[in-house]
């Protein structure tokens, strides 16, 4: 199989979401199936059309096999239950696309379901420590949660390029402006620079508004062949490229320079596979667990020169009407935290022209990314394009 063999052969045909809240009041099993059903309804498909399931989780959600059983699938042709957080999020979809492109399965649903606020908070509160060997070397120092880990790496980037609090604030403010036009978003009140700077410190150098939300929600997308997709209810969104990368560990990691993420190595492969360049991208949904990740990815995916991301954001390029609108749903910072799958869903909305008041006019190519390769060291991303 050559590197471009996946290009445009598989399509996203349906998107489903539960409401985003701080307390869903239901199990992750219920959330997952509600989002799956919504995605099937969007696609004009029935649950009996599915022959594959895929999700990622970190011991905090219903098993993929239970969802498959619940859907009544009796001959499960594709099954992925990936251990991992945001870094793996886009490889759930990418891996499912490989299964569809090769004919292993014909119609696969991918989802993330999590009660990330009311039940299992990332980093430990409400559950046992994550199943990672490295945790023993961190937790005794009170260095265990995602904001602490990302602050550690983010500081190296801020220090190297002289990035200021105001630079980070502009990322949060731009995304909030999009969220105001997103009826699903958890945070819809305007955010000013004064609000941002006055927000309480969490773990230096991160303030409250540098950090993503913790959300109860599920998001699902349905994939099938592009050929079949063209006969379905909604305009197909083609998977132009899908990649995973990285692989280093948190500590002795083969990456002495912490200011550059694993996405920098992966991005040329992703663009090459899709036959696209950064200049072709109309809208980018960049994994934004914390504001520094947005700046780093603008550089690692080749949208700006090294160290140029803060000026790029300050120019308005990533805001509404800019040359590269970023996180048009509000992102994890303002829409909600569905561990990367809500980025995929927003990219599909944009490419179908479904994004309402936040629609990027004429958007035809979208980049959607997973966490760029800190903590677990891996990363993943998708390039999507409209079939119009």
């Amino acid at each position, binding site marked *: 199989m050559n590197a471009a063999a996946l290009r445009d052969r598989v399509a996203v045909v349906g998107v489903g979401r539960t409401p985003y809240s701080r307390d869903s009041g239901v199990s992750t099993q219920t959330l997952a199936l509600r989002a799956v059903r919504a995605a099937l309804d969007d696609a004009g498909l029935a649950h009996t059309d599915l022959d594959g399931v895929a999700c990622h989780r970190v011991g905090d959600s219903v098993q993929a096999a239970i969802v498959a059983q619940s859907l009544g699938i009796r001959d499960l042709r594709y099954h992925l239950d990936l251990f991992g957080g945001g870094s793996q999020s886009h490889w759930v979809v990418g891996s499912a696309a490989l299964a569809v492109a090769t004919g292993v399965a014909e119609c696969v649903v991918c989802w993330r379901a999590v009660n990330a606020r009311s039940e299992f*908070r990332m*980093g*430990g*509160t409400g559950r046992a*420590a994550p199943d990672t*060997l*490295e*945790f*023993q*070397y*961190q*937790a*005794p*120092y*009170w*260095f*265990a*949660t995602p*904001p*602490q880990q990302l*602050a*550690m*790496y983010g*500081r*190296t980037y801020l*220090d190297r390029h002289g990035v200021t609090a105001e630079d980070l604030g502009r990322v949060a403010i731009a995304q909030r402006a999009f969220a105001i036009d997103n009826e699903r978003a958890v945070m819809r009140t305007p955010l000013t620079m004064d609000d941002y700077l006055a927000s*309480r*410190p*969490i*773990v*230096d*150098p991160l303030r409250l508004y540098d950090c993503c939300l913790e959300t109860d929600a599920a998001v699902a997308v349905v994939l099938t062949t592009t050929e079949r997709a063209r006969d379905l209810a909604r305009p197909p969104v083609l998977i132009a490229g899908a990649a995973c990368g990285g692989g280093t*560990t*948190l*500590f*002795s*990691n*083969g*990456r*002495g320079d*912490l200011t550059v993420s694993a996405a920098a190595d992966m991005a040329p492969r992703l663009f090459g596979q899709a036959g696209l360049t950064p200049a072709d991208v109309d809208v980018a949904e960049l994994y934004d667990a914390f504001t520094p990740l947005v700046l780093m990815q603008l550089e690692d995916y080749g949208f700006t020169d090294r160290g140029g991301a803060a000026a790029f954001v300050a120019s308005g390029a990533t805001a509404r009407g800019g040359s590269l609108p970023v996180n048009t749903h509000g992102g994890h910072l303002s829409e909600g935290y569905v561990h990367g799958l809500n980025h995929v869903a927003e990219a599909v909305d944009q490419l179908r022209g479904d994004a309402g008041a936040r629609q990027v006019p004429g958007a035809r190519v979208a980049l959607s990314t997973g966490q760029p390769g800190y903590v677990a060291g891996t990363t993943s991303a998708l390039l999507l394009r409209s079939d119009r």
Partner: protein
Amino acid sequence: MSPVRPRPAVERDSTPWWDALARHELVCARCAECGRWRWPPRALCGACGSLEWAFAPVSGAGTVASFVVNRHGFGGAFPLPSTVVLVRLAEQDDLLLPGGWSGAPDGAGLTIGLAVRVGFEDVPGDADADPYTLLSWRPA
């Protein structure tokens, strides 16, 4: 009530490392074939592929690769502020270890690149738990 810290979840691979720390010795895994360092301990050298390795002492010298200052409790009973450093060991550019900081709790005076030296903090045991030892880095 005194703060309760998460204890190290020691497993088979890491027991000798924690035992060395209790003797106030810092060791890392080193490939017996090519000499490359790695940490945490893993069974195979990602550089040369050898399965032969041993724990070996490192100098205890390094520089601050980064640091964070906790201002929020994250649901745990920890004193605030508290500082965690990520130290780049002198032995190898990509040999990085997190640890505690023996200096000001708010990290005053810390900068990326600061030369540091290893130190140790003995955490006493009690009726329910054995004592253990943590890293506590200090200015060189």
